[in-house]
């Protein structure tokens, strides 16, 4: 899970607005960059100047390895100053990045069905996961169901890409402007009992509130579930201890693990929400 990360330059192939405020960044990388596992991320420096100072963590959305060069895709939402600068970069521009980092999703060999639960930009690592589960459908087909939530129809992003690898998408919008009217966790709760805990694995990524609610739903339920969490990060390498995630220790205490090195993917039941 920990191929040695590299700190390298990537050249922007394109950086286009997909849905309002959401951009697809395609980067050309030297072949030395290791093939990432879904759920892994990179730290991207949006500028060589020191404003902003730190690199920004971004999940890997897609990756294609080539002999001459590889192509890495990032799907991102403009959230603040750093992502705003990123969104202004043009094809041909170079940027520094560090990766691949962290522990990705661990495929469950036995699982016949993957349930993906995505809130907002959380769709990014789950799309990479779905794409990587998709080719191994044969001879033991992995069925996939994706629950995708957003506040309203206009904020739904990344559906095209996901639906290409996972045709069964169940959309939820808070305002009911598309699909189920309500939280993604509400719809999942309704349908939860239809899934066979034995052959299923849940993978989730989204806002903290969504994942917390999911943790509650699954508390008394045997479905296994991995979540990818977000925390502010400085180093991405496990050195600064800035990206603390509260987990329950076997003794019942709370301890802090590092989102960047011990995660960002955790068993949902380990986390102290």
């Amino acid at each position: 899970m920990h191929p040695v990360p590299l700190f390298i330059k990537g050249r922007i192939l394109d950086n286009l607005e997909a849905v309002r405020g959401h951009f697809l960044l395609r980067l050309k990388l030297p072949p030395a960059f290791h093939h990432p596992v879904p759920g892994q991320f990179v730290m991207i420096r949006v500028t060589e100047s020191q404003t902003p100072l730190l690199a920004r963590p971004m999940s890997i959305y897609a990756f294609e390895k080539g002999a001459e060069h590889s192509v890495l895709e990032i799907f991102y939402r403009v959230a603040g100053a750093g992502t705003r600068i990123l969104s202004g970069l043009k094809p041909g521009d170079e940027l520094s990045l560090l990766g691949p980092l962290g522990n990705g999703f661990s495929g469950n060999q036995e699982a016949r069905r993957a349930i993906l639960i995505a809130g907002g930009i959380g769709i990014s690592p789950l799309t990479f996961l779905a794409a990587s589960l998709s080719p191994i459908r044969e001879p033991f087909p992995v069925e996939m169901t994706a629950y995708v939530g957003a506040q309203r129809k206009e904020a739904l992003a990344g559906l095209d890409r996901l639906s290409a690898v996972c045709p069964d998408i169940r959309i939820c919008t808070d305002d009911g402007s598309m699909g189920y009217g309500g939280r993604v966790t509400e719809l999942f709760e309704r349908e939860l009992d239809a899934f066979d805990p034995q052959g299923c694995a849940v993978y989730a990524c989204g806002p903290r509130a969504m994942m917390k609610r999911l943790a509650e739903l699954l508390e008394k339920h045997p479905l296994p579930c991995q979540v990818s969490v977000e925390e502010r990060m400085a180093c991405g390498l496990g050195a600064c201890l800035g990206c603390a995630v509260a987990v329950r220790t076997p003794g019942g205490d709370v301890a802090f693990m590092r989102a960047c090195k011990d995660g960002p993917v955790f068993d949902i039941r380990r986390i102290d929400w």
Partner: protein
Amino acid sequence: MRPSSLQPSLSVDIGPLSLRNPVMTASGTFGYGEEYAPFVDLNRLGALIVKGLSLEPRAGNPPPRLAETPSGLLNAVGLQNIGVKAFVKEKLPFLKEYSTAIIANIFGETVDEYGKVAEILGMADGLSALEVNISCPNVKKGGIAFGSSPEMAAEVTKRVREATDLPVIMKLSPNVTDISHIAESVESAGADAVSLINTLAGMAVDVEHRKPVLYNVTGGLSGPAIKPVALRMVWQVVNRVNIPVIGLGGIMCPNDALEFLIVGARAVEVGTASFLNPHATMNILEGIETYLREHSISDIGDLIGTLERP
């Protein structure tokens, strides 16, 4: 200013400690070394200072622990660490394999705890020195940092000095009225060297939610924002003490490191810079070498402390 092809001598002495070059890693920003081993040949570092260690493991503060500010980083990690015993058992064996000076950064909640940590590390094999962080609050004396009072700073120095034969570097807090007074005080108490600065106490507010950004409300400010303050303090201290001074605070590039050396620091520590560029220590080392060559300075000792009046 014609470049010389000679390899300048980079070695520096920090009291009893000889380093192959003046570029060290700052505590808490380089983990236990292993995290950066994929990027930095640890054998090329002047010294490697590890994350601060206490007698018992510490969980640290709940998140959020980080906030970015203009040219700065606020952190409130809360001195999370695995404890000195786990360090000796689990981390030191890896570090011992390197020829680089390994320095343990330590802290305690009481003077006695400082002493105990120093004793344990003094007996462990593989360490070259101790760096003593006195910026943490003294629980017994009501939460004032050990580093804010010359008397308390001296007390800690004495206790650590008695506890071990390792060279003792006292790491000073910048959150004081007169840092050179504290430096003099730890010098008299037996410190072999001082390093400065630790982080400046700071804060950030989330205006939308009207909450502190950090769970701990306040945190320590590091990065380029603090460099002018750090340089000024190093300059004040080198003019007041005779023991070697190690400079740090916002060093991002070779020029920053050179500023500290010219002012009189015998070595520098690189902190926050490693976060944005894991090769930062090596870039800085190479840049110092290039500068020496370009200025035909054959020994870094001939650069240190050569600040002229304007």
